[in-house]
């Protein structure tokens, strides 16, 4: 009796695991299946790199890929120094009380809903940009600034975590040799924590690539590759969100699945890269 209950429980657990795994694979399969008509209609390469011109029957997603990169890369680059500085203060430069408070602040930031970042961005940042630089205010720059703040807690938490996980023995040894806080941080802790920090950076980049609401609300959504920070842009994510579901079978509609596949591939590559780096780290220790 007890034995059979044990077996049943085990099988239930196994079934749940398999169900979850199947779901994940089916997301990709679903998108490939639904995007298929577009792949048959035009050449494989032109879908990714070609221009967007529905009147000519061209549904390349290059403007969206370019918009995504124009927003995600500068946002991550802008977030990097902010996060580096803050994680230095959280892990070694600040006093005990300050560290605790900063840690709480960063955790609080992870709990702020994305839509609220966008909402405040529209009404607080947009007028400033409109006055400072002219134009409509809906542009790459606005999205970059808000996105940089949005992803910084990800980076800060990963950075501080890997900075704190360095063997305290090494740090004490350096301290005994007379190294001050900044020296310990720069020459002992940083080099050892580098792998973990790179992971955090990649994950934050993945977040920036995959964020929908900020670019949807702030970047202006014009289907045209941006040529500067003050021009509007549409990201892959925003393109999916803005789809008009009226005609499910049109090729224009199918293009959102190519966007979906592109995003899936971008973020999956990031996750696999992080796992690879993580494994190298554990081998080294």
């Amino acid at each position, binding site marked *: 009796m007890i034995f059979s209950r044990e077996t049943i429980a085990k099988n239930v657990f196994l079934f749940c695991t398999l169900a979850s795994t199947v779901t994940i694979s089916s997301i990709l399969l679903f998108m490939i299946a639904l995007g298929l008509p577009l792949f048959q209609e035009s050449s494989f390469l032109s879908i990714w790199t070609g221009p967007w011109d529905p009147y000519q029957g061209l549904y390349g997603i290059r403007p969206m890929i370019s918009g995504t990169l124009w927003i995600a890369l500068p946002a991550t680059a802008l977030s990097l120094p902010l996060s580096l500085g803050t994680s230095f203060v959280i892990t070694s430069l600040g006093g005990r009380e300050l560290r605790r408070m900063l840690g709480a602040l960063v955790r609080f930031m992870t709990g702020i809903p994305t839509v609220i970042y966008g909402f405040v961005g529209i009404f607080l940042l947009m007028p400033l940009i409109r006055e400072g630089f002219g134009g409509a205010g809906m542009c790459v720059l606005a999205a970059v600034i808000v996105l940089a703040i949005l992803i910084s807690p990800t980076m800060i938490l990963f950075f501080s975590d890997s900075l704190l996980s360095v063997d305290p023995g090494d740090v004490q040894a350096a301290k005994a040799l007379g190294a001050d806080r900044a020296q310990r941080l720069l020459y002992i802790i940083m080099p050892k924590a580098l792998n973990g920090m790179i992971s955090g950076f990649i994950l934050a980049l993945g977040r920036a690539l995959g964020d929908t609401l900020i670019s949807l609300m702030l970047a202006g959504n014009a289907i045209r590759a941006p040529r500067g920070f003050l021009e509007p842009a549409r990201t892959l994510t925003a393109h999916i969100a803005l789809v008009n579901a009226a005609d499910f079978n049109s090729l224009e509609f199918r293009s959102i699945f190519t966007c*979906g596949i592109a995003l899936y591939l971008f973020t999956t590559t990031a996750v696999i890269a992080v796992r690879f780096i993580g494994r190298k780290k554990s081998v080294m220790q």
Partner: protein
Amino acid sequence: MQGFAEKAVVVFSWIMTILLCLFVFLFIGYLLIQGLPSLGRELIFGQADPLQALLGRARVFDGIFPAIVGTLCLVELSATLAVPVGVCSGIYLAEYAGPGMKKLSGMFFDILAGIPSIVIGLFGFSLAVFLHNHFDDRIGPCLLISSLSLAILVLPYIVRSTQISLEELSPGIRRTGLALGANKLQNITYVLIPNALSGISSGIILAVGRCAEDTAVMLLTGVVATAGVPSSLLSQYEALPFYIYYISNQYTNPEELAGGYGASLILLGVCAFLFMLAYGMKKHLSYWTLYRA
């Protein structure tokens, strides 16, 4: 020269920290100043009588009551779908799975955690269209489809937090029950799960927080601006985050805008509370909530 570089790093770090704090305080302060005055009965229930609205006898037209109810239904449904499956998978991975299975599924869940939420929304949307075309044309983007997509979205948090908090338990705790003659299942239900409960529940709370705020998924799976209190699983619904998005786009007068600020403040309060609660219960579990875009 080296000394100068070291000093520069210290100064730079402090400037960056101050800058970040400044951003956050400006942000929250702005929201508080704009949102606080509009908080009140009027914001939630509009002109309707609160008691009648709560009992479902009166419809609320100019308040955010339907959006709040919609969000609660959504969270409730997704949690019902995701928590049992997630916790069971977590238990299997921690206690039964071999190393190969562990590695493979670990990668799967990391990938799922990294997929942008809009892609999962797109999946839900396609599923709705598929069901509509092949089974029953009453099915469209609706509350049920949204909850399903949100459940998929938060599944990895629940699985991994369950798995990690079970694996973290010390070998002493793990073996005592077995040594006293408990079988594996008894050991799991009476010893391991109670001991890992704080970690598991912090994962669930984080999942609930994500369900309440993820606008991108809702956007594609059936949220609308005016639907009233949802009447069935297959009906469209309103939700708080979508209301905020909608107002930012479509507001026509200052009162509506003030409503948007009020709603933002409520949503911020709820989500920040849930996240802080989860962090308070278990500090280290939460890093990979952040994988999610």
